[in-house]
């Protein structure tokens, strides 16, 4: 087997092993980073939603309190403004969804579904838990979600959620007196949930992975070609030429062309040594032929 073949076989084996290992590790890392990025985005979105809620409760509602006596204005409800903010955000980030899932909401749109109700109950049972990240299966595929509890800490919230009698008549006229009452201070009835399809991090990771692996393969190919060309020019060809000349000299053709490489590497030294040996051999033969 030729030297270059052996060399290439080893090189290919090493490259293949490195490619697989690098692919596996990078895939895991990229998947994890993509998920982490989505969770981090979800955190920012939730914090922004909380900021909008605060702004609504503390600055918008007081301005509209008098108007609320004439007609119900959903713009005064923190949950409404958070949802409105998110629906605008979705125009840029259509993959994300936001819901303030509530066990006993005034507006039925905010009623928690089964899995959301489980999350709210989980937060009620573990009040110290501040965040929950998980995955769940849906008919459209896996979904990544992040949830946070919303505790009722502002007594003003009870103005609309204590009893139907104490709630603004315009709110009752809009939603009736059956739902959204009986809330207590420091109670957890709502969970903010941001969700995104798992396909999203997978897709993002896949895109990054493909890019990385293609780059890696390209680097391997370049290295492979460079090493082969170098091996051919620096080792294989000089050795082959040297071998041919040695063959001719061994057959008694002392007129075979000289072959000597300049330089200081091993092959150059070999040619220099071979040249000296050939010269010595020629002189020795001359001495033998001289009577």
């Amino acid at each position, binding site marked *: 087997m030729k030297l270059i073949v052996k060399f290439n076989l080893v090189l290919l084996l090493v490259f293949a092993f490195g490619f697989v290992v690098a692919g596996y590790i990078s895939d895991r890392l990229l998947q994890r980073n993509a998920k982490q990025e989505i969770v981090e985005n979800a955190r920012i979105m939730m914090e922004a939603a909380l900021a909008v809620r605060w702004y609504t409760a503390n600055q918008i509602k007081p301005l509209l309190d*008098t108007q609320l006596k004439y007609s119900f204005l959903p713009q005064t409800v923190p949950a409404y403004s958070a949802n409105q903010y998110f629906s605008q955000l979705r125009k840029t980030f259509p993959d994300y969804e936001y819901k303030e899932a509530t066990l006993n909401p005034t507006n039925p749109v905010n009623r928690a579904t089964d899995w959301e109700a489980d999350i709210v109950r989980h937060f009620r049972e573990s009040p110290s838990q501040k965040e929950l990240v998980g995955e769940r299966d849906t008919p459209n595929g896996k979904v990544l979600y992040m949830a946070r509890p919303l505790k009722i800490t502002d007594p003003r919230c009870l103005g609309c959620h204590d009893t139907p009698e104490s709630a603004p008549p*315009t709110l009752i006229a809009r939603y009736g007196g059956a739902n959204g009452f009986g809330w207590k201070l420091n109670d957890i009835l709502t969970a903010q949930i941001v969700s995104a399809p798992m396909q999203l991090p997978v897709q993002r990771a896949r895109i990054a992975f493909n890019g990385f692996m293609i780059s890696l393969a390209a680097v391997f190919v370049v290295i492979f070609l460079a090493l082969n060309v170098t091996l051919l020019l620096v080792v294989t060809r000089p050795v082959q030429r040297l071998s041919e000349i040695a063959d001719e000299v061994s057959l008694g053709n002392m007129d075979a062309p000289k072959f000597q490489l300049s330089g200081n590497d091993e092959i150059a030294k070999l040619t220099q040594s071979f040249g000296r040996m050939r010269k010595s051999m020629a002189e020795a033969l001359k001495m033998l032929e001289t009577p």
Partner: protein
Amino acid sequence: MNPVLLSLVLLLLFPLTALTQEAGTVTLLEGALRVIRGTTVLLGGEGMSLRQGDIIESSDPGFAQLEFAGGAIAALGPSSRLFLFSHGAGRAFAKPGGEAAATELVLLSGWLKGESSPSAGACRYATPLLAATSRGGGSVLVRAAAVTEIFVESGSAAIAEVNPDGNLGQSTAAKAGQFFSRRPGRPVNTASRLDPGFVNSLPSAFRDTLPSRLAHFAGKRPTEPRRQHEVTYPEIQPWLTMAHAWRRGFVERFQPRLSDPEFRKGVEAHLNEHPEWDRILHPEKYQPKAPPPAATPDSRHGRQ
């Protein structure tokens, strides 16, 4: 001077000074504002002073905010007519059937929103059918031909039927959120929810709390209203024919206008609606009758 005599003189002079005292200021105006002061029609503007007895009429579209000494704020909607019947700035005026009120505004037609703090004293917002007396809080009134409605927006108020003579009937304590309506000849109807028609036609500025703008005019000379013309009979006729309790003093006030033949003709034509003018137009009817000739001793004797 004897202190008792001095007090009596001051007490007698007080109503005159009260009449010329500034009762409030126009602090916000959209559209035109017509003010009938004395017998003159004026065109008002922001910063104009108001006086007791002023009749204020807004344009359509239009909005006017009036702020009174003592802290009460009133807003007039479009096409609204208001009479500043009394303003005591802490002095309360008693009225048969109702509690004494420091300020009484009479809404003849259109929209009125009144807001006051407890320090402003009792404020009465009256219409020919219903009246609200508030000691802090806000009320919105609308007076149309078919119905008069009052919404107690905040605080509390006493809601009373207004008798045809302008005095108050029995009053009902009302709390924030209650809605009252009355049609002519019918009793008061109370509801805990607003009538949708009321909400739909409510001037948009009435949906918010009235912001005080008095500070903008502090230390500035009051805006002088522009004199338009002397009041004509058609302009004043609705006021001359309103309930007696409010039109008291109008004969003396508008009597100088009788020198205008048109005005006189108008008064004469509607004399049955304001019969108190008869004494002025036809004083001869009210001259004391000449006593019968004194009986002679002979006739006395003859009778015997």
